[in-house]
């Protein structure tokens, strides 16, 4: 068996701990060091804790996982790539399009080093099922998409780093809505036209708490997005309507299940006059587990081991998603 990949994690909050868990489960990786300046969260047995990125880069490691607030993301990725390390980073990939372009420059300098971003929603079971159905062509061509992704915030939400423009570069759209934009691209590719309205309606913060957008691609397919941090009941919903049917992914499995059960509803269009119009037979599939974290780490490790091309969460995916985010911001400027 090959020597395990030695990995460091920069930022050991919620996402850092999730990634550490997956590294522990993967037989081809070994978590060596974590950097976390704040708090006193326990690190796994046998793993060193250092204060900052410099402490991680001093270690003999093969790869870094970046789980920092947005403000530090780009510089952390660039430093790790320039050090010759493979990098996996959480989304969003920085605070601006410029951040991503600087990252891509570093990626080019780094030659064969692998860079991957954690757009894990692509790997959720419901999304994978939807993608297979769309790609099979058995329900015809995509007509339109509609995505709603919202969370409620909570006590002190406006004081969190996620609600600071200085720390994040944007609000709920950049933090969470970017997943839905990435999914739109996963199904349709790039969009050429954006119309939007963005607002801060409730939280006392300098970033948006609601973003509404309409996107259209060159084929005329329209995608509608609502991203919100005033969705008092957490909600994830992605509808993909095709010429002969539709799929609707509802809920997204999370550790608290606060977005509900994850399911996909599938139905074929029916104009059969013997049935009530607009009430087709639907099949709803419920998924019991979320394989997305495991699949992401597996893809990253396989790419490093085998030299395979990253398929999900490339720097191009990150760049295009960020361009959409800022096109939505600019659209309401």
């Amino acid at each position, binding site marked *: 068996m090959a020597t395990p990949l030695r990995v460091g994690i920069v930022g050991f909050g919620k996402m850092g701990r999730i990634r550490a868990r997956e590294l522990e489960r993967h037989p081809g990786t070994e978590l060596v060091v974590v950097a976390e300046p704040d708090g006193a969260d326990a690190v796994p047995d046998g793993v060193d804790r250092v204060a900052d990125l410099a402490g991680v880069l001093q270690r003999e490691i093969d790869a870094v996982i970046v789980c920092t607030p947005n403000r530090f993301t780009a510089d952390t990725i660039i430093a790790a790539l320039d050090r010759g390390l493979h990098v996996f980073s959480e989304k969003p990939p920085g605070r601006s399009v410029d951040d991503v372009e600087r990252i891509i420059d570093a990626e080019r300098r780094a030659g064969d080093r692998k860079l991957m971003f954690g757009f894990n929603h692509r790997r959720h079971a419901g999304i994978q099922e939807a993608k*297979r159905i769309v790609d099979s062509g058995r329900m015809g061509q995509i007509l339109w998409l509609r995505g709603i992704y919202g969370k409620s915030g909570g006590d002190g939400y406006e004081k969190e780093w996620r609600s600071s423009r200085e720390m994040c570069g944007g609000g709920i759209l950049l933090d969470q809505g970017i997943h839905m934009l990435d999914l739109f691209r996963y199904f349709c590719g790039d969009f050429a036209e954006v119309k939007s309205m963005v607002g801060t309606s409730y939280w006392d913060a300098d970033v948006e708490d609601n973003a509404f957008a309409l996107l259209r691609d060159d084929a005329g397919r329209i995608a509608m997005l609502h991203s919100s941090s005033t969705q008092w009941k957490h909600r994830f919903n992605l509808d993909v309507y095709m010429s002969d049917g539709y799929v609707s992914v509802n809920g997204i499995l999370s550790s608290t299940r606060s977005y509900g059960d994850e399911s996909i509803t*599938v139905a074929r269009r029916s104009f059969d006059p013997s049935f009530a119009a607009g009430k087709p037979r639907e*099949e709803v599939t*419920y998924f019991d587990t979320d*394989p997305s974290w495991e699949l992401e780490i*597996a893809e990253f490790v396989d790419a490093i081991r085998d030299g395979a091309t990253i398929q999900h969460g490339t720097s191009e995916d990150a760049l295009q998603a960020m361009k959409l985010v800022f096109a939505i911001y600019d659209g309401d400027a």
Partner: protein
Amino acid sequence: MARGAMKHVVVKGDLEEATIRPASLLSELRQLSIEDARRYFADASALEESDCPACQSASRTPAFERDGFAFSACADCGSVYANPRPTAAALTDYYASSRAARFRTERFVAETAEARRTEIISSHANWLGRIYDETGNRLATGYADVGTTNPAVFDEIRRLDLFAPLCAIEPAAGVVARCRDLGIDVAEEGEALGVVTAFETLEHQHAPDSLLRAAHRSLAPGGLLFFTTRTISGFDLQTLWGSAPYIYVPEHLNLLSIDGIRRLLERCGFEAIEISTPGRLDVELVLHAIEADPSIRLTGFVDTLLRHRDHRAHQDFQAFLQKHRLSSHLRVAALKKESHS
């Protein structure tokens, strides 16, 4: 490497029993079956004792008696099964020559074929197409249906444009010619297939594990088995138990529990990737049964729900049964395990 998560399915849409099982046809089939069963299985040599056909446990208690045939309940997995049951030879004879078997294919299936295609078979085809897309062995494209009674299944499978060749394994005697007319191979067993289906067949089998083992042999590595059957774990059978008017020998020798199905799959070399109960008729079946037989007594809650709540409540309850694997209509997708010996 993570594979697809275990899943289960709920179906939303109106369906009435009469659409797929018209009362007059159902009544005649039942009557013929009961009469033929008495004739074909009257001799003691036509029956034999059986352990649980799902988990093989010998531990059992009497469950109920139907039309002179005893059913046992497995103390380990909860499956209910005819015991003693017709021997394999007696069953073969019954299905080859009984009036009931002939009526089933020539009248019952033929006259409900179009409704079944719309309501059932089309969705079966979409179901297996989706799981094949996700998990199937793309190099193994052969498809076989075991115990075919309705050749319309092959039309729907052809629409997917995924499978060739198509094969009917041990089809019902009355549909062999129709299968050949459709260009379907007819065989006793398949080889290196991508998918094997067995719709509403497991419950008739003398030995369900024989069917599953034959399917296992017929499948290529990574091949998929799909089947539907009635489960005793479902609401209508749990409620009506031995009073369910639609349970009779030999149509229903095996009413396996969900736990029993899991164990059966495991010992026959399959890994379950979907176990769902997307039935839409449990509540209606119980309503019909209590209307036809006023002596059936329901427990307080069920009596209140069925007799004193409206159709909307019944629909909501049926949806709940589906979601929590509590309907008696069971569907299973399973993957052939490599290491099974």
